[in-house]
């Protein structure tokens, strides 16, 4: 009588198939400057709902990449407050170095900004994948390559060819796909993409956006997309958090936010957007310039100097960022503005 094969123990992917939630609470990341230590991210709370795509929209210097790197506990700044809780992992900011190494890759996959240029130009892609496996103590390197091939084929690429290619032999769109493979090949269930389509033309961008949507759905990921491009966020994200000067100034479901932005910054940004539809004459440039670490107002509302609705209170009190993100719920919205009534729990 044939014996039943023993139950296969899956490698450490605790919640395989079940998307993980990420909760950022009261996160502050500061950088040392000539003017002392200044926060690039200030008391930010944000939920990445499991299985959803969250968009983080912000201009250069808004702190969006600093926030995203903090999810990996890899920010070059100093975390001065807050926590980043991931289901099945705990607080990433409290993990020891060894645990952190496992979490990066096995739990969180990160596609870096300009990942088109972040491959090693001297090694073919396949060799770099093996390096990645070895540095993470992966014993089944053959399995790892198999997973990489499957991912590449899913993205419509000839996997044997891509693995044998050097960086310069791949187009921008192909490199971006390779970046996604590197992020997911260790079976991460949280995927972070920082400006996934910069430097791509419209056609490659549309293809990469479709791939992100497909990979997200097929692998039950919890995804964070960071971009300055409202179009990219509008195409991908279920919810959007708008970041300005290190704060989340507004958060809402994507359709609701684009149709009815409430924060004066979001409103001004959307009406300054060159668009393919509608009357170009109705667009209004946004006055002033986005602040950097040094020029962010130290007291009051960070947007007040460019704000058409600024009132005396805006100079003295920073508007409450509508409490913890969790209080908003999946369909809820929050706005951090003295001039916008309601929405605060």
């Amino acid at each position: 009588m044939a014996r039943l094969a023993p139950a296969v123990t899956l490698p450490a992917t605790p919640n395989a198939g079940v998307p993980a939630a990420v909760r950022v609470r009261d996160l502050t990341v500061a950088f040392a400057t000539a003017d002392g230590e200044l926060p690039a991210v200030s008391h930010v709370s944000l939920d990445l709902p499991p299985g959803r795509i969250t968009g983080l929209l912000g201009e250069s210097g808004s702190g969006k990449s600093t926030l995203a790197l903090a999810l990996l506990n890899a920010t070059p700044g100093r975390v001065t407050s807050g926590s980043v809780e991931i289901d099945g992992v705990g607080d990433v900011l409290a993990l020891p170095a060894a645990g952190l190494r496992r979490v990066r890759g096995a739990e969180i996959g990160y596609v870096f900004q300009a990942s088109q240029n972040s491959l090693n130009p001297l090694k073919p892609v396949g060799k770099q994948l093996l390096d990645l496996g070895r540095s993470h103590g992966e014993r089944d390197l053959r399995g790892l390559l198999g997973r990489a091939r499957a991912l590449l084929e899913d993205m419509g690429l000839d996997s044997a060819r891509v693995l044998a290619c050097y960086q310069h032999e791949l187009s921008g769109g192909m490199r971006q796909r390779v970046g996604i493979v590197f992020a997911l090949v260790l079976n991460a269930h949280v995927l972070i993409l920082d400006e996934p389509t910069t430097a791509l033309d419209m056609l490659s961008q549309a293809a990469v956006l479709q791939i992100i949507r497909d990979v997200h759905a097929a692998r039950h990921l919890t995804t964070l997309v960071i971009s300055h491009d409202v179009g990219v966020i509008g195409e991908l994200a279920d919810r959007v958090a708008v970041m300005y000067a290190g704060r989340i100034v507004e958060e809402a479901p994507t359709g609701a936010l684009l149709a009815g932005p409430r924060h004066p910054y979001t409103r001004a940004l959307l009406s300054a957007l060159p668009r393919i539809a509608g009357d170009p004459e109705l667009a209004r440039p946004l006055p002033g310039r986005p602040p950097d670490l040094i020029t962010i107002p130290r007291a009051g509302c960070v947007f007040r100097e460019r704000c058409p609705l600024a009132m005396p209170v805006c100079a003295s009190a920073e508007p409450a960022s509508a409490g913890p993100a969790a209080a908003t719920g999946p369909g809820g919205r929050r706005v951090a503005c003295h001039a916008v009534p309601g929405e605060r729990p």
Partner: protein
Amino acid sequence: MIEARGLVRTFPGRGGLLGRDPVRALRGVDFTIPDRGAVSFIGESGCGKTTLGRILCGLEDFDGGELIIDGRPLSRLRARQREPYFRRIQMIHQDPYSALNPTHTIERILGAPLALRARQRGENDGWIRRRRAELLELVGLDPGYALPRYPHMLSGGMRQRVVIARALTVDPEVLVADEAVSMIDVSLRLGILRLLRDLRERLDVSVLFITHDVATARYLGPGGELYVIYRGQVVEHGRTDTVIGGPVHPYTQCLLAAIPVLRGIEEPGPQRPAPLGALDERAEPPGCLFEPRCPFAAPDCRSKRPALGHLGGTAQEHACLYPERRAVVPVPAG
């Protein structure tokens, strides 16, 4: 006015023992840049649009066809003789972060070309100072603020304004803007586009706008013209509104359908065609160049290469055997 007739540029193929097939960056392109005009070229990476801009600025030679500047054909002129013509065409680079010398103040960045200009015109230092302030004000910068500063102390939008002011020091007739807003913060892009539009009116300059972001081409003011270029060939050309409002070439339709839709305020066009596969620069199809990727290709597209014309009585010129208007552009919701 600038005219290009059958402009050709071919690069030798690289690598391989026997050499590879040459890259045909421009395959006989005709266009006109009218005075005070706004002419936009759109297409994906590798379509030849950057080569075209470089040829216009004299940074690249052409090896066929003719470039006529102010009535003068350039092909028979030597490089030295061409210089005064090319000086009338100034390039605004994509990257305002690397286009300015980081060790020079804005005062010096604008002062150097103005000093040359002053010598040509017999003007004194007072003229340089006045002109410097004038140009900065023209591009929307406060001279008192900008002059003593180094490029890194300015935002991307301000730097791009300095780049434009520097281009204006030689009183050009044409500004060639190659992806001039793609590296600028979203909230500042409209300001730069408005500036280019205003310069057309105030200084009588024309703008040659090279971009992959079709939407920005709509913001250069009235009377704009759009050329859609694919593998070095113009496949559709007409008034910007006409082409965006009713594209007839499948390639234009794929480009327009790829524009992200702003959910909540826009809806995708009823049709959203996408090209079949990626651009293969090595393949040289005998018929229509776009046929291998065209979602609407018919059998004879594989053997016949259509020329630019008004086949089917279209308002715009196009190079397609079966032109058909398709609603591919996102439309305002509701």
